[in-house]
């Protein structure tokens, strides 16, 4: 089933050789639409697989304790904290990271909203914010401000830029509605 040439091993960190007797699993994860076959140690976290194994460094690791939401990615469309899920649990599932949201020439409406409404300052929380917002708009294309604040309440912004983040998401909702109409 899998394409051997597309198989990469990632389990221990950059450049560290595989240890004898360490249990590794071959998993297939569709990341941003591309099927990736990787071998992982079961204790590897999804965030580490994405950042180091697959070099998708848009997934940020903030608190590493399930609080801040900076590492939020979509697993089958649902926001999940990638520091609190094992990579092996993503076997057979679809993962979307911020790299899969849009392209520089064709931004996702959420990305466009963050640009237009100044939704980021330092930018660290932004990938998680945008993916959570993306999932919200999929489920509820016409959210109230209250809906947006509620949906984003698991994503922390240390710059405290919430006002503009909320505006950015509401802008994206308007934009999407316009595109549909």
């Amino acid at each position, binding site marked *: 089933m899998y394409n051997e040439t597309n198989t990469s091993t990632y389990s221990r960190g950059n450049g560290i050789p595989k240890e004898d007797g*360490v*249990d590794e*699993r071959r998993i297939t994860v569709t990341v941003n639409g591309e099927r990736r076959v990787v071998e992982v*140690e*079961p*204790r*590897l*976290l999804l965030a*580490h697989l994405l950042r180091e194994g697959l070099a998708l460094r848009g997934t940020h690791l903030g608190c*590493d*304790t*399930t*609080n801040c*939401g900076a590492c*939020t990615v979509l697993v089958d469309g*649902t*926001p*999940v*904290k990638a*520091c*609190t*899920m*094992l990579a*092996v*649990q993503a*076997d057979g599932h679809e993962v979307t990271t911020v790299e899969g949201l849009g392209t520089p020439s064709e931004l996702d409406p959420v990305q466009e909203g963050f640009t237009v409404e100044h939704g980021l300052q330092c930018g660290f929380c932004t990938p998680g914010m945008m993916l*959570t917002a993306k999932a919200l708009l999929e489920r509820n294309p016409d959210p109230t401000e209250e809906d947006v604040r*509620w*949906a984003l*309440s*698991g*994503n922390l912004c240390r710059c405290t830029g919430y006002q503009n983040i909320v505006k950015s998401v509401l802008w994206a909702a308007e934009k999407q509605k316009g595109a549909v109409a």
Partner: protein
Amino acid sequence: MYPSRFRYEAPRSLDEAFALFSELGDEAKVLAGGQSLVPLLKLRFAAPEMLVDINGIPGLDYHREDADGTLHVGALCRHVTLERSALLTAKHPVMAAAAPVIADPIVRNRGTLVGSLCHADPQGDWASVMLALGGHVVAVGPSGRRTIPAADFVTGPFQNALLPGEMALEAVVPAPAGQLTGTYLKLERRVGDFATVGVAVAVETSGGKVTRAGIALTGVGPNNIAATAAEQALVGKPLSAETVEQAARAAAEAAMPKSDHRGSAAYKRNVVATFVRRALARPEALAA
């Protein structure tokens, strides 16, 4: 942060899972939502030999009601499912009030009610809800199936009554005999924080009198506390300003809060009383 090494198995059926549990006993840990377990593994507070990931076992994500109104919540039913449940909104006010205030929305996407009960964090919200509603946990293990009342399920901080090789299959809330009212009120410093104080109140009334009362407290003791004296202050009497006040004071008495960064002991006690008053002062409670 990396967890210690462990064996990982993802059984496709309960039978496969039980075979693993009987092989490893206490050294096999169930991985459901993982929103408490994975952080514990990362901090190496827990280092089980094996994780048994039950997410691939079909048919455990249900929440449903029997014909008689008994509510069953399966081991893989996530908080988010309960938060959006029309069934809970229509018929289970205490559960419906608690679901949206568990942790934060992203954690609720993964975490489960049954997992939260098993984790037995003294700050956990669901255990108070289950205590107030008189619920129980159904456990399955080598010696068969048994029912563990919520009051007996948590045996200490982060300790539950499951035996080696046993797994919690579902949480069950009995059908109310009378008219059920109540809610779960939680004070938190910010969304996603543990409760400074949480109070679950479930009151059944019939013929103008309280037939059953459940009042349980979160975050004000070494475990979730069933405020039995407060419950007794209500049972057999009509809900009145006087009985509500008695219950509020008894609940504050039952609390064993400690002063910490979330507030002083006196403040938390005061919040307990205020929450009991508020929960019972709701128009639907007084009208019942």
